[in-house]
């Protein structure tokens, strides 16, 4: 394992030290291991809280700030945060209007956020939750813990964050977040495994001519292994899976997130995006907004995910609303 670290156990904490140094707009509480917007709590504003294992940077701490999250709870690498962290975040951001949890659908995340919601409720803080489960590589069946939450999480955070900024109440913000999740589908492909600092070795082995299809964002193996194919064929396969699960009709608008998993260079992401844009155009779908870059990552995994969100004027208006966070900024 080759990483710029001091000790595997200290990675999350030391990265938070750096985050604090880099972004005076954020309040980083190393004791509680939470990242809070400097102006939180704001009276009457719903507090948006997300969190999950570390290793997906810039998500979530990079999305804390005006128009997006009020707090992030980074767990250990690929390990969901604990209830205490989430409770501390709720206390730090509740301005009387309650909080909204944005939770990716993993057993650990769901349970820890649920426990935190109970603790927060005990303290008199209203908690609403959005469960994100956009990964259509996983079928939602009795054989799974449901679909995983991946790329759509940042869309939910952006759009729900904008609505919270407008002054909506917790139930409205949560309902909107759920609507974004329902309108979104993601699919990911990896060209290499990733290595967690604690494990010190890759999560799986992949041949020089193989790709892992339908991977999550925790370094776990994917749904199946295939021979590597040209970008055009990979794009076709990926988009077919997405549109089969959540169709977007010709003439409809979409928000598209062309996301890198960490070690894939931007030049490849743009190349892939060109393929997806061509395919969507052929299908008559209008890409109303898009992002190309590393937003929801999996440490040093080479790979990509595509997220397509069927959009409407409200979602686009909220997408365009000003945002000022370390990793996403416009309009301000």
């Amino acid at each position, binding site marked *: 394992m080759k990483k710029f670290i001091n000790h595997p156990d200290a990675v999350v904490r030391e990265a938070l030290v750096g985050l604090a140094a880099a972004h005076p707009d954020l309040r980083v509480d190393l004791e509680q291991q939470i990242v809070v917007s400097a102006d939180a709590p704001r009276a009457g504003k719903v507090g948006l809280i997300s969190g999950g*294992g570390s290793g997906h940077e810039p998500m979530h701490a990079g999305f804390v700030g005006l128009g997006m999250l009020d707090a992030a709870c980074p*767990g*250990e*690498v*690929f*390990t*969901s*945060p*604990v*209830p*205490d962290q989430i409770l501390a975040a709720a206390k730090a951001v509740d301005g009387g209007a309650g909080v909204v949890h944005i939770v990716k659908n*993993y*057993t*650990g995340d769901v*349970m*820890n956020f649920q*426990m935190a919601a109970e603790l927060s409720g005990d303290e008199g803080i209203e908690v609403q939750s959005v469960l994100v489960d956009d990964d259509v590589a*996983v079928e939602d069946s*009795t*054989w*799974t*813990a449901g679909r*995983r939450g991946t790329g759509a999480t940042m869309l939910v955070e952006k759009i729900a964050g904008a609505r919270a900024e407008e002054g909506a109440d917790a139930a409205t913000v949560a309902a909107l977040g759920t609507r974004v999740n329902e309108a979104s589908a993601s699919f990911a492909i990896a060209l290499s495994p990733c290595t*967690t600092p*604690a*494990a010190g*070795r890759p*999560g*799986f082995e992949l041949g020089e001519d193989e790709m892992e299809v339908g991977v*999550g964002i*925790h*370094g*776990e*193996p*994917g*749904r*199946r292994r295939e021979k590597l194919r040209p970008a055009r064929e990979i794009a076709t396969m990926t988009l077919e899976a997405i549109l089969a699960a959540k169709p977007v009709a010709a003439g409809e608008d979409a928000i598209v997130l062309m996301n890198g998993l960490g070690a894939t260079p931007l030049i490849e992401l743009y190349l892939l995006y060109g393929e997806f844009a061509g395919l969507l155009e052929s299908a008559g779908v209008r890409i109303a907004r898009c992002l190309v870059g590393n937003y929801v990552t999996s440490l040093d995994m080479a790979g990509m995910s595509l997220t397509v969100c069927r959009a409407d004027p409200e979602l686009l208006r909220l997408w365009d609303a000003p945002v000022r966070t370390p990793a996403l900024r416009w309009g301000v």
Partner: protein
Amino acid sequence: MDVALAKAWLDTAADAIAAQADQLTTLDAAIGDSDHGVNMNRGFGAVRTALAGAAPGGVGAVFTLAGSTLVSKVGGASGPLYGSALRALGKSLPEGPEVDAAAFGAGLRAGLDALRKLGGAAPGDKTIVDAYLPAVDAYDAALRQHGGDGDGGLAAAARAAAQAAAEGMRATVPLQARKGRASYLGERSIGHQDPGATSTWLIFQALADAAAP
């Protein structure tokens, strides 16, 4: 089971988990996210520290503290599950510095119930439940068979539980996961031993070791 044995169990478990952390992580790499050993080691290390710093008067308090510590320090799936189980065990025990083997067995089952309520896993889903459930059943059966008075009864029941946990653990290999992260692999989860069932066995084995006369 008295306070000293309760602490000894958790200490022994912490030792076993520290020694096997790498192995647990390797199992988790195959069908999960390579952190189960790290998570369990962080959690049981914290339990050790918490118990060393506190002087719980009752057996139940030992487990309640241990469970709360796991919930606060582990995260992931295993933290809330094991944490809730230990908390439920602690809360189900009668007050006092000592409880009998039957009460302890009932407590173990209360822990299992809490864990199942939280996680929703059924036997055969390739989870902690697949080692925990047979362990509790074996414990009860042993107690019924040999009687539960004194530490001898507990020791025998714990031995039976550890053995059943080991069998349950090994029986997870051919299963396809239906719960937790491994379920995302679909049929690719078949052929691998479940990490959580493995740590459950370590914990029951630690009970047997600590309770051994």
